[in-house]
């Protein structure tokens, strides 16, 4: 298990639950905006709850905009952190990190599909990924979000809420999950463990 895990501070108040989830796996996450610390970490988690503009603002203030796309260790974006990996978010027309091609858009509200998309939903596998080791296809994960990316080239798992959207993505060493693994019971815990144990040079 990789011990040196950096949790990038990109806004949003709720970081305790992720830290506890890592502790349950025997890992202490370091909450940081320090570029050197992030670059040296074995694993990088990009969490975040809240608006895309505020999240990108915090990364800009911390001079992390150029660093993050250049990272070579496994990086996992969670919820807003996943959305920030894309090129742009239509939430306040925010340019994002551009690691994964595509645009993040508002989900469409209807009486059957309320926004925010909040609660437990199923992830359908679209491609193989080590992140899914030991997790049955169609497992339930906990989502809280209003914006999402369409299923695209790098989508390895998707979910339906009014329309299908990418709920798990992977491009090279960059991974993203739209749900909250730290709040998704056993399957969430397993996914975090899989990420921490990814074979990587």
């Amino acid at each position: 298990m990789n011990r040196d895990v950096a949790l990038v501070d990109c806004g949003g108040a709720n970081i305790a639950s992720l830290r506890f989830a890592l502790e349950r796996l025997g890992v202490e996450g370091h909450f940081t905006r320090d570029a050197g610390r992030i670059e040296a970490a074995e694993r990088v988690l990009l969490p975040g709850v809240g608006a895309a503009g505020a999240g990108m603002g915090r990364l800009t203030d911390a001079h992390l905009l150029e660093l993050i796309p250049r990272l070579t260790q496994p990086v996992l974006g969670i919820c807003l952190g996943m959305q920030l990996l894309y090129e742009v978010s239509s939430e306040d027309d925010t340019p994002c990190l551009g690691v994964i091609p595509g645009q993040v858009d508002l989900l469409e509200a209807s009486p059957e599909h309320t926004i925010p998309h909040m609660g437990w939903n199923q992830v359908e596998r679209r491609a193989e990924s080590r992140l899914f080791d030991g997790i049955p296809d169609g497992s339930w994960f906990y989502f809280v979000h209003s914006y999402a990316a369409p299923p695209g080239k790098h989508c390895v798992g998707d979910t339906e809420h009014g329309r299908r959207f990418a709920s798990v993505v992977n491009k090279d060493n960059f991974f993203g999950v739209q749900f909250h693994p730290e709040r998704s019971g056993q399957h969430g815990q397993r996914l975090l463990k899989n990420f921490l144990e990814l074979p990587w040079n």
Partner: protein
Amino acid sequence: MLARRIIPCLDVRDGQVVKGVRFREHRVMGEILDLARRYREEHADEVVFYDITASPHGRSVDRSWILRVADVLDIPFCVAGGIRDVAGAEEVLMNGADKISVNSPALADPDLIGELARRFGSQCVVVGIDSSGGDGRWRVHELTGDPSLSREAGRDTLDWVREVQERGAGEIVLNCMNMDGVRQGYDIEQLCAVRDCCRVPLIASGGAGAPEHFVDVFRRARVDGALAATVFHSGQIAIPDLKEYLAARNVSVRD
């Protein structure tokens, strides 16, 4: 498809879980962490902790237990009671709660809803509404944690439901006071009326007494989640059995 949520509600007073009948006569049901662990293992979809004494007495919730709960739970949880401002909400969220729920303070200062939504995002902001009435008219009540202070808040429930959404509420918990604690089923008529003007997730509260009540509220009132206390705490309804019962009747639930 989004699962319908089963949500045990733990009314907290002085560090213990209590439950009253129609908001009165509270009796101790158990320790917070023991019940939190039990619900995690039973696959509850979420847990709500509600400090029933906080708002009426002008006190804040004792925050120390929130961190311990966050350590134990790997499912989302919401904290209600005594959250009056952005700083109070931030403290609760920093301690690991996923959502904060405001009720009486939002009635006293409706701008609070927007302030919380702008700072933390709507998804964190739940507005709890205590409501009673009938025949197509329902009224909001406030300070319901204390029978000596509980009173009508001077607002029509459906108007308040519309207003809190405009102000940025990301979820509404409707507690139907007529039915609370009496286990005769959810107030379907009221919940249907609220559902028709509610575009954010709606959680039904008050009245669960049997598995068929859950089928009813999901099918007929189309709520996103159903909250209950006594029937879960007492063991009268086991959550895994309830989910099996719901799944067999084509209600989408997380297994």
